[in-house]
């Protein structure tokens, strides 16, 4: 199997890491496991990690992807960090709403709004 491109792109903005998804679908179990492992590594890199996940490219996700996001959220909380989600398309937001995860996660319309929401 040829080497695949990393599943995430990370942009550093001061002490906040902005994470972009490289694939429009977060469905495949292997793909989700890889994203989860990459997020875990980012979370473990620093004390009080601050992560902003930008969903602008994401068109599809499954319940397994939600599980991976919850795992990341729990891990960030354990380290007294902060997680923000932004740019979620309406069809994807509906998945968060049905599962009531729109109440668990802090979700913002735009990347700028999410960036501004991090506590100093």
């Amino acid at each position, binding site marked *: 199997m040829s080497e695949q491109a990393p599943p995430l792109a990370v942009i550093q903005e001061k002490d906040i890491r902005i994470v972009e998804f490289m694939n429009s679908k977060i469905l495949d179990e292997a793909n989700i496991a890889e994203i989860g492992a990459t997020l875990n590594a980012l979370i473990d890199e620093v004390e009080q990690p601050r992560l902003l996940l930008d969903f602008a490219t994401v068109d599809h996700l499954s319940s397994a992807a939600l*599980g991976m996001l919850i795992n990341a959220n729990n891990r960030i909380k354990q380290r007294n960090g902060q997680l923000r989600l932004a740019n979620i398309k309406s069809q994807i937001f509906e998945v968060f709403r049905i599962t009531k995860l729109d*109440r*668990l996660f802090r979700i913002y319309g735009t990347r700028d709004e999410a960036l501004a929401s991090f506590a100093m």
Partner: protein
Amino acid sequence: MSHPSRQSKSDRRPVPPVITQTRYGTSMKFNIPSEFANGREVQAQILDELGKFKYNSDSVFAIKLSLEEAVVNAIKHGNKLDASKRVYVEALVGPDQVELTIEDEGPGFSRNEVPDPTSPENIEKCSGRGILLIEAYMTSVDWSQDGRRMHMVKRND
């Protein structure tokens, strides 16, 4: 009965579907080993067929998500990733509705015993949301064969 040949990098080829045309649309029957790659191939073929009909974007999204959740459930929770066990998928894809039947060879389950994933004690758990999503997105869902067989319908409206 013909089936277009598919190029695949993988050595593993799913059992090709039995395809028949009915008055309600295209019937596709698959019988695959419990492996995610096979499940994915089945989904791709059903979604290709769906693309021949006029379904709006929300309906396609709903069918895609529900099919993914149901096939993963059958492989993972039904057959417990045992590749010697089979998953049977039947799709009836027509202009008015899509009907999907997914059956596994596991022990079965009772819908009423699946905990509510939206309750405060479960909201931070990493699994258990598939059925909730399927029920929210499909027009109807029912189970038979002690929970081993799931049948769901999405109306094109």
